[in-house]
């Protein structure tokens, strides 16, 4: 039987791993590759790796960190794919088919697209035809404005006309393979997922929905899996602050009787 997935999300900004809150307030968490090595050892089911750099500046020397990160994003993907014997989704700043091709060639299994798809929905169709629906993850960022939920573009900075379930159905029709659903208001708040949003979108489409935004407790993963039809639960911050976080999360979910891949620790295997 197919298992529900537990997916750590890594956010990269100017070459560094960061933590965010409501898509703002960045805090550095350190080296982007060592984090992947850890998550790989803890046998995460998959990884989502998002480059949220707004300008073109790849950090070449933060004096306060003492060890400048001189790697380009592509070099980082190389290292990440070597460290992770698991599926990797890479997103951020994808604007052309060539951008997708470059990421897949570097060892990404899937790409995550957002702003470009909203600006030009036909891009989804073109990408699906070229690379297959299985490697297209559509990221949908949602913000609550008054009584309504609104799909946001450009890293949560620009509102669009779309309601989440409407846009979700549209991207499915155009050839998206999965939906990565983010509640901006919940990002970094640790108050749990926006369950209504997850339920609405996951029943509107037949493709898998990955839940994100708001996890502060392992129980929040369970809530989403028990009460909505999401196929995977993702989170960023919570996985970076405790030793063996993925193992602990999985142990909790297994004990709650959820259908997930059991916890595992892969020490020593990935030394190469």
């Amino acid at each position, binding site marked *: 039987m197919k298992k529900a997935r537990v997916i750590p999300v890594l956010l990269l900004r100017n070459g560094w791993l960061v933590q965010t809150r409501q898509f703002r307030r960045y805090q550095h968490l350190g080296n982007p590759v060592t984090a992947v090595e850890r998550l790989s050892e803890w046998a995460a089911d998959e990884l989502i790796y998002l480059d949220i750099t707004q300008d073109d500046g790849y950090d070449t020397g933060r004096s306060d960190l003492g060890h400048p990160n001189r790697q380009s994003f592509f070099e980082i993907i190389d290292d990440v794919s070597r460290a992770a014997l*698991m599926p990797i989704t890479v997103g951020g700043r994808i604007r052309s088919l060539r951008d997708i091709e470059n990421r897949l060639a570097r060892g990404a*299994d899937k790409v995550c697209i957002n702003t470009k798809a909203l600006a030009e929905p036909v891009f989804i169709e073109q990408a699906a035809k070229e690379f297959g629906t299985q490697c297209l993850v559509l990221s949908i960022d949602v913000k609550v404005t008054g009584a309504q939920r609104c799909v946001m573009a450009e890293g949560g900075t620009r509102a669009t006309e779309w309601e989440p379930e409407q846009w979700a159905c549209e991207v499915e029709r155009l050839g998206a393979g999965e939906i990565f659903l983010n509640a901006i208001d919940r990002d970094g708040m640790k108050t749990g997922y926006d369950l209504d949003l997850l339920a609405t979108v996951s029943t509107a489409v037949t493709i898998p929905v990955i839940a994100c935004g708001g996890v502060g407790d392992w129980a929040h993963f369970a809530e989403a899996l028990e009460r909505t039809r999401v196929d995977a639960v993702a989170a960023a911050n919570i996985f970076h602050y405790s030793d063996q976080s993925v193992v602990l999360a999985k142990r909790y979910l297994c004990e709650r009787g959820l259908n997930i891949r059991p916890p595992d620790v892969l020490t020593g*295997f990935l030394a190469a």
Partner: protein
Amino acid sequence: MTRVCVLDYGSGNVRSVYNLFAALSASVVVSSTPSDIADASHVVLPGVGAFGAAMQKMCHALPLDDLRDAVLVKRKPFLGICVGMQVLATQGDEFGSYAGLGWIPGTVRRVDHGSLPLPHIGWNNIVCQHPSPLLAGLEHEPDFYFVHSYAFWADDPRHMVATTEYGENFCSVLQRDNLFGVQFHPEKSQRAGLQLAKNFLSYP
């Protein structure tokens, strides 16, 4: 000496497959030349994408006569991954009907997925149907990572050594003598994938 040749024909995540065998400290070469195939002790055929497109690329980029000699005459252990397994069939019915290599009699058709979404993406377990050296030392019904919509139906059910359920039971591990095929991606399947790769390298 163990020397793995990962066949490069412009399809599939060759780099990840390389990483898998490199993680086991095997000597690995990514190549499509007759001499690298001749020098190899083990041959691996990766693949993603559609059956017909993969066959076309292979015919164009791989020395198929040398490959046949290495695998069918010299009987070097061969592992096909995903579409690399499917092309072993006599025929594939994805976007039209295409002839495969025909090394294991059977056909490739779409999985009858019922109400479940296709492609079948994610971790799913395999169920062993016949003992195979490829599955030695694995846990009971281990999970592997799958990404596909089509699967292999072998004419001889004994060749289907493990199956997986997704709407229906399809063949997830195939074996005929020194020819092995897996529908899932061992290079993305962590502990289980490493064990399977190790088993392959210790064959025969």
